[in-house]
């Protein structure tokens, strides 16, 4: 049974890159979101095994999404994928429950490996 | 900077932020505006006019180029036109600009504030607005023609308007 991934980023190109990488690594991409509120709603609807989550998004941002997701599921595996790497921002994200953090622009293999660590593939 | 064009050889002047230009035909005055306002005052019988590129609504006692603020630009335009023997009576106004190009960090929508401030300053000076193309979220390339007083407004991807 493939692991199920939700991809949340306002940039279509990033969603495309992450989806392609995830499928190659054996994930099933079950949904996408382009803003924070949509990410919360899709998480509730889809119950994915993991989420990749951008921070800077229009309307409702990634921190809002992270808080909403963790309120719904305290065990959620959320990998923050963001071009912002300010110490304060990282602290807030970890405090809000992020499982890990990857900086954009990312190495696809590194992203795949980080997701693998969060939700190991079971044979 | 304030420029007065009296030579018939001067055809086009680019009016930069905070500048005012005055003159007569065949002079054309141009400006590219976003949140700024391109304001023209024109005397139809004498065929003389001035254009200001207004940046902010109110000087609030600050120093700066007279054309920069709505409340200082209009008195300065009137002074310039007076130097060209053009009285304030019979002057009419046209304006273009005051857009909100993107959601910016400032506390106010500066384009809207500029539109309101220019309208207020014109009312205070007793000058009637005969045409305007303001607001929205598109930039405008404006040409004011001293021959006839037309203000031609071009916006990317939209039909050209003649005010």
């Amino acid at each position, binding site marked *: 049974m493939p692991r199920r991934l939700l991809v949340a980023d*306002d940039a279509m190109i990033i969603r495309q890159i992450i989806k392609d990488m995830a499928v190659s690594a054996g994930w099933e991409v079950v949904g996408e979101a382009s803003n924070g509120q949509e990410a919360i709603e899709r998480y509730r609807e889809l119950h994915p095994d993991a989420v990749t989550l951008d921070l*800077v998004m229009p309307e409702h941002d990634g921190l809002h999404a992270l808080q909403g997701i963790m309120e719904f599921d305290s065990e959620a595996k959320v990998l923050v994928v963001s071009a912002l790497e*300010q110490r304060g*921002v990282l602290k807030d994200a970890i405090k809000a429950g992020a499982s890990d953090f990857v900086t954009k622009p990312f190495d696809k293999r590194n992203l795949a490996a980080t997701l693998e660590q969060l939700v190991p593939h079971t044979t | 900077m304030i420029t007065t064009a009296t030579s018939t050889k001067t055809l086009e002047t680019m009016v930069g*932020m*905070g500048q005012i230009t005055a003159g007569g035909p065949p002079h054309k005055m141009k400006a590219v505006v*976003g949140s700024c306002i391109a304001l023209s005052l024109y005397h139809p019988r004498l065929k003389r006019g001035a254009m200001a590129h207004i940046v902010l609504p109110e000087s609030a006692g600050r120093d700066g180029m007279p054309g*920069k603020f709505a409340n200082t630009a209009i008195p300065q335009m009137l002074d310039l036109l007076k130097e060209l023997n053009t009285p304030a009576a019979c002057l009419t106004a046209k304006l273009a600009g005051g857009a909100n190009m993107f959601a910016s960090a400032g506390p106010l929508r500066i384009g809207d504030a500029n539109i309101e401030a220019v309208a207020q300053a014109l009312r205070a000076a007793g000058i009637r607005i005969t045409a305007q193309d303001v607001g929205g979220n598109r930039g405008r390339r404006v040409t004011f023609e001293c021959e006839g007083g037309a203000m031609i407004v071009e916006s990317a991807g939209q039909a050209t308007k003649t005010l």
Partner: protein
Amino acid sequence: MIETANENVKLLAGLQELFASATHDASAAMCRWTDGIISVALDALRQVALEDVAVELAVGDEPLTMVVMTLSGDLGGSIILMFDDLNGRQLAASLLGREAGTDPEWSELEKSALMETGNILGCAYVNALTRLVGMDLLPSAPYFIQDFGASVLQQALMIQAAAGDSLLLCDIGFHRQGAKLDWRVIFVPTPGLQASLAQSLHAAPQP
């Protein structure tokens, strides 16, 4: 007066070094994003008179393709990436690994490629400047705009224009494998951010 002018020259030189350092980080991010093909470098830190901005920056009066990010708050500003349409589409094409589009309308994926370039570049600057001023800077999501460059630049300049008639701008150029490209980034810091950066210069340890 001479002393003040000298101090101003020193301040500008210091700010130039700061922005050059931040640009170095931004360039590293651009290189990673474009697989080593594109880099950026600080062309100039310019102090420009308000009325001369459009002419000095040669933004012209033709429409450009732009990506804009804003930084909110007193320590803020705007970051504007500018391309002519052809160059913008070529960048999008190289990021997408395909030929440049020929439709008059940009596709959503092309726009996304350009906006994400703006996001990565803008956030790289934000990360570097945050380290310098010691406070988090808050970037917006990027905007894709096709319009007159001068119109967009005006709004970005408003906060500085409210404070005075002399504007400080960073003019940053793009390079592809050593050759200069006809793309640029203009970074417009607010007076508040300029002051914080100036303070960080004074706080820096003397060699």
